[in-house]
């Protein structure tokens, strides 16, 4: 494991998890896009049940 001093350690622990925010935004965004694709690209074009 990388050796870091106590100050750096404290800075890491108390800083905002920006990478996590970015990952979560990407995941939620991808899910919304995929849902819209399935709804408008697959479900709606199939039309009603005759």
């Amino acid at each position, binding site marked *: 494991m990388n050796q870091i001093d106590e100050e750096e350690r404290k800075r890491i622990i108390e800083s905002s998890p920006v*990478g996590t925010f970015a990952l979560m935004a990407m995941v939620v965004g991808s899910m919304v896009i995929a849902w819209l694709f399935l709804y408008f690209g697959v479900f709606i074009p199939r039309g009603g049940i005759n």
Partner: protein
Amino acid sequence: MNDAAERKLALSHLWVAFIAFILACFMGEYQVLERSGFVPALESPAVYFASVSTHGVLMAFVLTTFFIMGFGYYTATTSLKQPIWNIKLAWSGFWISLLGTAMAAVPLLTGKASVLYTFYLPMQAHVAFYFGATLLVVGSWFWSAIMLVMFKQWKKANPKKPVPLAMFATTANALLWLWTSAGVALLVLFQAIPLAMGWMDTVDPGLARTLFAWTLHPIVYFWLIPAYTAFYVFVPKQAGGFLFSDEMARMAFIVLAVFALPIGFHHLYMDPEQASGWKLLHGIGTFVVSIPTLVTGFTVIASLEIAGRLRGGKDLFGWIGSLPWSNSMVLAVILSLLMLILGGFGGVVNASYAMNAMIHNTAWVPGHFHLIFAGTTVIMYFAIAYYLWPLLLKKPLFSKQMALVQLWTWFIGMGILTTPWHVLGLLGQPRRISSVVYNTLLTLAWKPYELAMIFGGLILLGSACLFIYNLVKTQLAPSTETFTEQVEYAETYHPVASVPEYLNDFKLWNRVIAVLMAISFGVPILQFFFMDTFGSPAWGY
């Protein structure tokens, strides 16, 4: 503390769970082969449905219940640092559940309980199946009671102190299970057993499906909570960091326990016995329960980010590469979260009231629940087993490298199995079929996907065998006196000294559950006693 008795108790439960698991894996591969039609000699609807019913019961009821009980006992005794309350009662629960499993196995394996693991009435099984399932659940209620008593005892002895997170999560699951299993218990007690015994001539399938819907969704969270528990209490420490937030974890478990229950009607979107307003209400609740999953995803990933940065990771995503990927717990959580994202998307589609019509009762549905259960959940059961086995046996794991290979192959196999399954659903293949009997362009188009699924199933079967092999070799290895490892629970950087009572107890939440269940299931169940309905005679065995 000498915890030899507790370790033996936990290990016995876990072995029953994993024996059920490996048997069910062989059945799963047979089923995908049989259904494909590539091997005509295998084709037999009778054997197929007996196998698929046994596979479902072994995986969804036996693996899960025994695993959760064993893991719960170990978590309780190690996190609270006290012996199991009334260990004789715990062993009684174990033997009752085991007796129930054996009793249900006989009709299942002889084709007299081919009613699938949902056992929707009026499909009828031999009465021994219902008695066996009842005993399995009754044994698990002993576990729930022991967890609740230990939780209460600890709180009484440690007033104002926060209950250790691992025990808080386990108790949430015990409470959830008592509420969850009540629906199916009512179904079995008042409908299935009287019908199978010949005390009733007909049964109301609408009521039966409503009662099963009570159980059918929260049971998924009963299975999932041990995985989430490992996410919160093991992963941050194993990754070399800290838990991002203890309070967020507690809130996630509370919301899971409360909102997993009153939402089961998304399984009944296409059923006629419930009005669309009730279905919409449950549908909205279904989206609410996605919140604790998002909170869990955030908290776990944030904990991993702290660990990755403490290990020297830089930039926005550089910390991911710095994580200890060679640690089986860390690898498993990453693979589990990836499958949770994909499976979660499938779940959102299932829960969408309109779009559900597109995939309802198609191959999409088993594809979805295999990805969420066999993927997201069971891969964490593996990781927990790899972590606990050395602690339970006081011996090192036979092969850490083999464990990593096994986790990767499970992930790859699950992807190859479930992706075509979802596609087949969109192409219109129904679920619960034993073979494709039509020779049309449509069904011929399914063949490449069937082939891929057989291949995925084979990888999974090989992976499952590796898992069991590693556990057996560890068990049979000679004891070492030098093994000193202890269970390590993750903590926040600043240890939590106190939490509000609503984040440290379930009295309030138990009442909230009661109110929500009365609102969401009260009228939908009572209506069957006030309106004219027409029963159905038993069908099947």
